């Protein structure tokens, strides 16, 4: 059965094709197949609706396979290192050396009622090319011990060479410092000083645009045996 063709059939691009011979079906390109399928539903849905449906399906399917679950924080294993290992913390390279407990070492660390001092000796060397405030050690070293005042600004950092309060550590130069924490004397002296060392990155704060040492990231735990000093 032939269907009378009303003139030359036109393809969508406007170019004309040779007229069909009798019985020959038009070549069905992929585009034309899609067009045919679309024609079937074009009275019900528009391309926009189809797009929305496909996007919604994608979101739902992603959720079904766990794409929208909370990402678990990766629990890093913080390695325990030996005393004397240099650790890169950001502002300095820190080497934790020894720990003591004492009731006071005059004249720098004054004995006081109800207080005991936990002392850690460390060597620091400013990384980079500029001096770094030694009390940044407060941001990279945390001591776990009972009886510490969590709200106090500690430790206090002194220079080992002359007992003065540590100011800035110079680059390329190793300075030995003494970090002093105050502990309530009613708390027991722990057998070891457990110190967690964090590293921080120097970046712009998203809050106010200033550069700060942010993102504390634990890199090591050091256990220093505590020697009791009896000197008053």
């Amino acid at each position, binding site marked *: 059965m032939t269907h009378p063709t009303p003139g030359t059939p036109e393809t969508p691009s406007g170019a004309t094709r040779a007229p069909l011979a009798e019985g020959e079906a038009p070549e069905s390109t992929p585009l034309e197949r899609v067009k045919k399928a679309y024609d079937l539903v074009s009275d019900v849905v528009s391309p926009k609706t189809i797009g929305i449906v496909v996007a919604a399906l994608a979101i739902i399917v992603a959720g079904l396979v766990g794409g929208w679950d909370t990402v678990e924080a990766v629990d890093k294993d913080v390695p325990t290192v030996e005393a004397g290992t240099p650790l890169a913390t950001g502002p300095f390279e820190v080497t934790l050396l020894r720990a003591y407990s004492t009731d006071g070492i005059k004249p720098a660390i004054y004995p006081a009622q109800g207080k005991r001092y936990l002392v850690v000796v460390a060597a620091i060397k400013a990384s980079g*090319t*500029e001096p770094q405030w030694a009390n940044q050690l407060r941001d990279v070293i945390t001591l776990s011990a009972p009886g510490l005042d969590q709200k106090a600004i500690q430790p206090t950092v002194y220079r080992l060479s*002359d007992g*003065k309060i540590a100011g*800035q550590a*110079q680059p390329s130069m190793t300075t*030995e410092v003494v970090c002093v924490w105050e502990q309530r004397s009613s708390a027991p002296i722990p057998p070891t000083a457990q110190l967690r060392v964090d590293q921080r990155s120097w970046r712009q704060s998203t809050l106010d645009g200033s550069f700060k040492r942010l993102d504390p990231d634990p890199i090591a735990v050091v256990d220093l045996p505590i020697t009791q000093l009896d000197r008053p």
Partner: protein
Amino acid sequence: MIRASRETLLTILLIVAALAVGNVITARLPKADEVANLPFVHTAALGVPVTMRTGTFAVTKVDASPIVGTQLDTAVTGGLFLVLTVDVTASGEPLYPASDDLRIVASDGREFGGRPPVREVCGPAQPGLTLTCMLPVEITPDALAGSRLRLPAANRDIVGPGESEYAEIDLGISADAAAELAGRTTPILLAKPTVKGK
């Protein structure tokens, strides 16, 4: 369905190209911030006075020792204290020279300085009267040769931008002089700031 005609494609390409070219141009042009923040640098040498907006400064002497002190206090370092004798003549109003903000800059770019463990507070320098101060800087001996002093015109304001005017004073320390300075061991007593008579 969107039919991407030749015209549309060409327009898209032109827009992307224009954005890319604009990006490259703005990245290469100097920004207002960079120009506004260019520092005012005055170069000088040991013994040569340099005038900045806050006053006139001259480094007259360089000494070194591992031990420095005042009458009340002593500091010891494993490296070296470089002690600079500086003459300060303020202009306009009394001045505390920027003794904590100054830096000794080594030839490889390392900077040394900051609040020293002992000091005799330098200042206030009265306009028209020259004040002589001794300023210690903790440094490693290998940074001495070819080092220079970067002295800001004033102390850093707590609020506001950092100081942008400073003097770069070549301390004239040759390698031999550096070795000799590094070998000094006599403790240095920091004198109280004194006013130089005319």
